[in-house]
């Protein structure tokens, strides 16, 4: 065997050994994918309680600077929004100061009632926010070394509304119990990242700049749906939605069903609706792109409906809305 051949054999064996060794360590130690690659969701998830029934994420900066947002602003007439008022009250400019937002719903606090919690990362004027909240009757105190501002008891939020700066540039707002829980999680503990079912879905949606994942049964019970409708929807265990806003709008809505039979039934129902929509859109060229982009998929217990809208579609929608407004005048 020549030395060239020997080197080749050694190199191949090394690649095999390193690959198999790494895989073996990953298999036994169970280190997550993120040990090599990104894909475990935003860092803010470490502050979300493990029993959250809904987790949502939006990359505000990406969405605000996207061409879709630009086209939508140009095409649609200016709608009254609370952005200016919100900036005056808190000093936060949603378009420039907030980078991303993570929101969650949890049932574990407030006697089983749903409680909401929002984490926003960006650039905030802590002093101004605190003084504005104090002006509205809020009280401030320390909880485990973190400044906790609690709104007046008269707040409409069940269990009280609180705000805390968990890290520089990261503010948590929501139910007092959840904000306190987030401060506890700052020092370690089980967060939603230990919830395998939820994280599996989050990982699968992480590429979108806006997504939401939730347990459908928990949300349906909170929504107080009519009993007949609830019975029809019950086979859905998890739902997930993801969208990527930029260079058009692509997205997917996904439902995890309890069994394959339910998934097949739901697929049949959605297929029927899609056929009807395609039939209806035949005489509406402006809607054809939207309807044609709808694609039903999913395997096993998963039912998925994906869509993809080119950015030009927003010009068409804008024109259609504009015509509607003119007609109504």
């Amino acid at each position, binding site marked *: 065997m020549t030395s060239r051949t020997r080197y080749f054999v050694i190199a191949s064996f090394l690649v*095999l050994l390193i690959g198999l060794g790494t895989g073996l360590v990953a298999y036994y130690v169970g280190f997550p994918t993120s040990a090599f690659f990104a894909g475990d969701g935003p860092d803010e998830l470490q502050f979300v309680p493990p029993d959250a029934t809904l987790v949502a994420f939006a990359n505000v900066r990406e969405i605000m600077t996207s061409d879709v947002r630009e086209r939508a602003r140009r095409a649609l007439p200016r709608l009254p929004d609370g952005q200016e008022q919100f900036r005056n009250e808190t000093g936060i400019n949603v378009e420039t100061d907030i980078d991303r937002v993570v929101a969650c719903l949890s049932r574990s606090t407030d006697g089983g009632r749903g409680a909401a919690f929002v984490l926003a990362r960006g650039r905030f004027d802590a002093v101004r926010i605190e003084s504005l909240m104090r002006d509205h009757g809020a009280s401030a105190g320390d909880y485990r070394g973190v400044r906790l501002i609690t709104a007046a008891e008269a707040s409409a939020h069940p269990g009280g509304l609180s705000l805390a700066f968990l890290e520089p540039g990261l503010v948590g707002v929501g139910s007092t119990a959840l904000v306190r829980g987030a401060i506890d999680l700052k020092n370690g503990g089980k967060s939603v990242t230990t919830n395998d079912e939820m994280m599996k879905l989050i990982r699968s949606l992480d590429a979108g700049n806006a997504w939401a994942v939730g347990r459908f049964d928990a949300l349906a019970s909170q929504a107080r749906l009519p009993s007949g409708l609830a019975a029809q929807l019950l086979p859905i265990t998890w739902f997930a939605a993801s969208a990527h806003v930029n260079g058009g709008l692509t997205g997917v809505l996904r439902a995890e069903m309890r069994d394959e039979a339910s998934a097949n039934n739901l697929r049949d129902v959605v297929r029927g609706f899609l056929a009807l929509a395609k039939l209806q859109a035949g005489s509406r060229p402006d809607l054809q792109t939207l309807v044609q982009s709808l694609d039903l998929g999913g395997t096993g217990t998963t039912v998925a409906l994906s869509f993809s809208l080119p950015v030009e579609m927003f010009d068409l929608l804008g024109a259609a809305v504009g015509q509607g407004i003119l007609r109504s005048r």
Partner: protein
Amino acid sequence: MMTAPRANRPAALASAIRIFDLSLGQMLWSRRSVFLAFLVGGPVLLAAAIRLATILEPLFVHAVRSSQIGGVTLFGIMIWLLYVHVIVPVLGVFYGTALIADEVDDKTITYLFTRPIPRSAVLIGKYLSYLTCTILLVLPSVIAVYFLIVPINGGSVGRSFPLLLADLGVLAAGLMAYGAVFALVGARLKRPLVIGLVFAFGWEPGVLLVPGYLKRATVAYYLQALVPHKMPVDSTTISVLTRMFDRFPSIATSLAWLAAITVIALWWASRTVEVREYVLEQ
């Protein structure tokens, strides 16, 4: 006529190892290796391109995720379509048929057959060098593809590691079986490359689509039964293709048949080499 004393004649195994040592370098650094490098490098480049696209182009990764195809499934599709159906049979055909046929074409077989070694040791040694050469190229390529593709869409390299081991085993078994079958073709028939290509890409895929027992006369039938990946079930072309092969024998049966095919084909090829008079064209 004087014959060499039997005691001085090296054992078949030692002879085969000597031939293996000699052939491995020749096989690795031949012109055919360029083709081999392209063949096993192609999937790695493809995997790297997909991985890069998911990093650099968020729309692409979102499209991948929307399609519900995870990294593990994508890896399974690559193993199924690229390695099991293309690379392994191609390597078997090109290298297996050449084990003896190349020596005949180059008129160098006389030099090997005039050595004081069993003729069958020439074939076995060359077969072992084919196996080493292809395994050392194909398996690292699969490992590279695995680490590039599996993490896409939240796949875990740890959880799916048993699948990688199974895939490596399947590919090694495929290389063994195809190599032995095509070594037999190369030892017995003239123009073995043409016949081998017709067998691998005409007979095998064709027969697999025909209902009945004829598919049992293929290597692919038993090899596909060992592939651990479950293909996505929908209306795509890939899914339709994979459903064509959805009735497989059990793993034990497949392994037994692959082992039997390998041993019988190698034994038959060795017997052929032992008794056949190769006429070198002038």
